[in-house]
């Protein structure tokens, strides 16, 4: 089941009356002040590769896939966290950037299960898309280095399994939980290579009632309203159950309404096939 693809501008719209003009890959672009370079580029029709950014969450700047070059500027800043400035000249595609982006993907894939063919997200996965976009052909580090491939799957929640081996630690779920939902139940535990998504003090996800309300097996899940977008009814607040889901028994997140990402462990693509029957 593929979700309807909706445009994702990477970062939220800036609300400012002041208009800034800049150049992106030679094309003049006008956007409100405070807009990120990534969003300005997306509005102008350029798509800069990204993984950690999504327009329902504030920019975070962790994946480092969206690097760009700015004329006269130092280094290669992340376009999601860089606001536009008048007269800025941005380059989104250069051989140097291509190499850096490929390098980032090479690192990601060196610690990712190679089971695309059997993965429920196959064909609808941002990680897969980005690997293609940056032209990743080989992983020169090999696959025998330190990794998370054997990380356990947390199946304690009735709506989804959290497959840690597939998590790329982008923190979108953590940010969705705090920024959109205001629940602050998720965090990244550990540091460096040991960073992992964790629900409060390392407990299993289902044992956190405030995030995933326990649903008696005999009752349908009570639809919940998302604070930011009132039209969303999320079953477990982060994962929305569609009317179809009730009958077909899988939970589907709705990206623009609920900030849970379209490919992460929290949502359908990562977990489908392993999404569970919603107790009805």
């Amino acid at each position, binding site marked *: 089941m593929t979700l309807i693809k909706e445009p994702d501008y990477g970062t939220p719209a800036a609300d400012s009356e002041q208009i800034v003009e800049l150049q992106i890959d030679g094309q003049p672009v006008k956007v409100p002040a405070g807009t990120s370079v990534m969003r300005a580029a997306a509005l102008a029709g350029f798509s800069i590769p990204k993984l950690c950014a999504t327009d329902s969450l504030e920019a975070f700047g962790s994946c480092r896939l969206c690097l760009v070059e700015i004329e006269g500027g130092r280094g290669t800043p992340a376009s999601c966290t860089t606001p536009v400035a008048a007269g800025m000249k941005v380059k989104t595609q250069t051989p140097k950037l291509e190499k850096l982006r490929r390098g980032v993907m090479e690192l990601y894939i060196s610690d990712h299960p190679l089971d695309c063919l059997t993965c429920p997200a196959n064909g609808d996965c941002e990680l897969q898309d980005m690997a293609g976009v940056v032209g990743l052909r080989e992983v020169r580090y090999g696959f025998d280095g330190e990794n998370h491939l054997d990380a356990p799957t947390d199946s304690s929640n009735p709506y989804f399994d959290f497959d840690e081996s597939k998590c790329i630690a982008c923190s979108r779920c953590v940010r969705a939980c705090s920024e959109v939902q205001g629940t602050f139940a998720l965090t990244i535990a550990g540091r*460096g290579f040991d960073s992992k998504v964790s629900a409060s003090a390392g407990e299993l996800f289902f044992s956190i009632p405030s995030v995933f309300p326990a649903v008696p097996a005999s009752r349908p899940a009570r639809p919940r309203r998302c604070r930011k977008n009132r039209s969303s009814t999320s079953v477990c607040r982060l994962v929305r159950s569609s009317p179809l889901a009730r009958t077909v028994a899988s939970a589907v997140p709705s990206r623009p309404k609920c900030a849970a990402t379209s490919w992460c462990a929290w949502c359908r693509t990562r977990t489908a096939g392993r999404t569970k029957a919603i107790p009805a």
Partner: protein
Amino acid sequence: MEFCAEESCGKCTPCRIGSVRGVEVIDKIIAGHNRSQNLVVLDDLCDLMTDGSLCAMGGLTPMPVRSAMKHFPEDFQKLPTENFSILDATESLATEAGR
């Protein structure tokens, strides 16, 4: 690299995963596995960490690595004592000579 792997906060990819891979690649170079190819990989990784990291932790980690590669290149070419594979070593020497 080991220091960086130890100290990395884990927010950004080049430093979180890169430092761990950096340790591994250097280990392979020391052990003489595919040396010339791995030196290229290490060089690319240094570029990536320098230009791609979010903060100076990952951004400056390649500095000592780079300076070792620049000023003590012979240390990266030494015949490994353990896990020595004559095939790998001759291969890397041959490629090196061919460059």
